[in-house]
């Protein structure tokens, strides 16, 4: 059976996030506005005022309360959504850790923005990177349609009985949060049907005042280790589950994104570049142009950052001659990009090859076509065995 085509509307990435959440009929929404996410809260409030969204909207005084409210709502058996960005994500950090530790299946849109330290109301993935080790599932998307579709998939992943983990759907602030595109809005009853499988699963343990249980107070030694072990095992299971959900989504709605990663023209490629978010779209056009010149380059889009799609990446990269990674954030202490450092950990499996780190796009700097052409040229030379620079801060070199 196929879903209906859905209405085509010109909406921004932020609106798409709000539509995605609304269509999943959350019981509770609690979110605090922050640039460049504010429109998500505005749109959800409008849905609520119009009667389209029947959730309980909790007007919170800050992000910390927002995360505590939605995590508690999921632990009471409800479906809950929130959205934030940058300083907001930092301000809720203890609650972010709590939500993961409690295995609270919250879905959160995080609109990527630079973080405190250097004031910057601008795009960058540093906020997401700084919650990398919180135990959440983290997905990065490329455009407005993918935001909507991925939020629907995220609820199915978060609430799956075998997973029960919070999911963060990340999209670049400004470049995608404000990007108005034609977006297909699925029909609500079709989304109901897509999520219906959750109702056939065993019921997850919930907090019920009439049947008190102790949970999350503390764990000692081996009990603590067992909880951590199970958390890690659930994250591991999330990889395959995400691929399956993506495939189901494609079969039903006609749109799918490859699950953990998407490979673009990699099959016969000599070398590949790896990136995420809005840079992927532009990279597609540059790869197409380079292919037309006879350069055998491929592109890998990293969709899932936590858990890290090791197996998929090994399969995609093994046998290539070189790989270049474009990061829109930094890995403090490694003087390189975070996705690059993660990929370096796969070095034994992918085999000896040059791995190049490119840092670009911090603080809303545009990851332009010439930047990506430069990446491809550098990786092409490294693939030919020429000496290469391990880490390149593209816009700074350009300035010289």
């Amino acid at each position, binding site marked *: 059976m196929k879903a209906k085509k859905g209405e085509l509307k010109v909406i921004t990435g932020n609106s798409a996030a709000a539509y995605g959440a609304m269509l999943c009929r959350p019981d509770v929404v609690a979110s605090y506005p922050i640039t460049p996410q504010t429109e998500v809260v505005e749109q959800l409030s409008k849905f609520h005022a119009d009667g389209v969204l029947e959730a309980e909207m909790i007007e919170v005084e800050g992000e910390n309360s927002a995360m505590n409210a939605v995590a508690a709502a999921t632990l009471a058996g409800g479906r809950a959504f929130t959205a934030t960005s940058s300083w907001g994500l930092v301000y809720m950090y203890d609650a972010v850790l709590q939500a993961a530790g409690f295995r609270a299946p919250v879905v959160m849109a995080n609109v990527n923005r630079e973080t405190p330290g250097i004031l910057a109301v601008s795009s960058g993935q540093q906020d997401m990177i700084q919650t990398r080790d919180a135990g959440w599932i983290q997905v990065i998307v490329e455009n407005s349609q993918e935001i909507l579709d991925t939020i629907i998939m995220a609820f199915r992943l978060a609430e799956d009985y075998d997973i029960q983990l919070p999911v963060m759907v990340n999209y670049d602030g*400004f470049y995608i949060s404000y990007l108005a595109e034609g977006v297909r809005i699925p029909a609500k009853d079709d989304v109901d049907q897509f999520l219906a499988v959750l109702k056939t699963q065993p019921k997850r343990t919930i907090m019920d005042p009439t049947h008190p249980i102790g949970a999350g107070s503390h764990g000692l030694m081996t009990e603590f280790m067992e909880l951590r072990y199970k958390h890690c095992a659930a994250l591991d299971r999330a990889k395959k589950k995400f691929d399956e959900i993506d495939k189901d989504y494609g079969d039903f709605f006609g749109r799918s994104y490859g699950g953990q990663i998407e490979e673009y023209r990699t099959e016969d490629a000599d070398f590949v570049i790896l990136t995420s978010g809005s840079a992927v779209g*532009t990279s597609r056009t540059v790869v197409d142009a380079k292919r037309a010149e006879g350069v055998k380059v491929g592109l890998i889009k990293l969709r899932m950052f936590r858990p890290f799609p090791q197996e998929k990446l090994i399969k995609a990269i093994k046998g290539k001659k070189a790989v270049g990674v474009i990061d829109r954030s930094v890995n403090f202490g490694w003087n390189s990009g975070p996705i690059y450092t993660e990929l370096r950990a796969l070095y034994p499996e992918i085999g000896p090859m040059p791995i190049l780190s490119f840092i670009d796009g911090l603080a809303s700097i545009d990851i332009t076509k010439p930047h990506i052409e430069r990446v491809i040229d550098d990786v092409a030379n490294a693939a030919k065995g020429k000496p290469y620079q391990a880490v390149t801060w593209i816009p700074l070199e350009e300035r010289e």
Partner: protein
Amino acid sequence: MKEIRFHGRGGQGAVLAARMLAISLVAEGKCVASFPMYGFERRGAPVVAFTRFDDKQIMEKTQIYNPDCLVVIDPGLLKLPTLFTGLNPNGTLILNSSKVFDKQPNENLKLAGVVNATQIAVEEVGRDVPNTCLLGAFAAVTGWVGLQSVMASVGEYFGGEILRKNLRCVERGYNEVKVIKWQ
């Protein structure tokens, strides 16, 4: 693919104009990608907005460096030293101004539409919101989108009296724009 870059100031409606144009183009079956670039939302701060349209899905997520058309909502921004940098050799300009050019401002600029959108907005709406008038002028000068589609897109954002006032701005922009051509 056509690429359009809007230059305005916070509060003049550059972002909304770019989105209305996107809606009208999608209504005509085009694929569109449109986004603004600014930091904090501040009235009076320079705002740039980018709109691309094509017959196929648009993958680029970058800002626009080689526009086919510039839409300048605040005539003060004509002084921007980089305004015309990278303009397509068959470039078009839609300008809100009370003055018409006496000479070609850039060799790549071949077609300009000038309309006093501020005055029209003050007359029709009662304040300086020149964006919808310039969309009417855009439709007339470029021919890339129909007047009816633009008018329908304004209805997505306004209703009642304010919609009627803005629709008069669109129509007047369409009818009153002065077209200048260079070789």
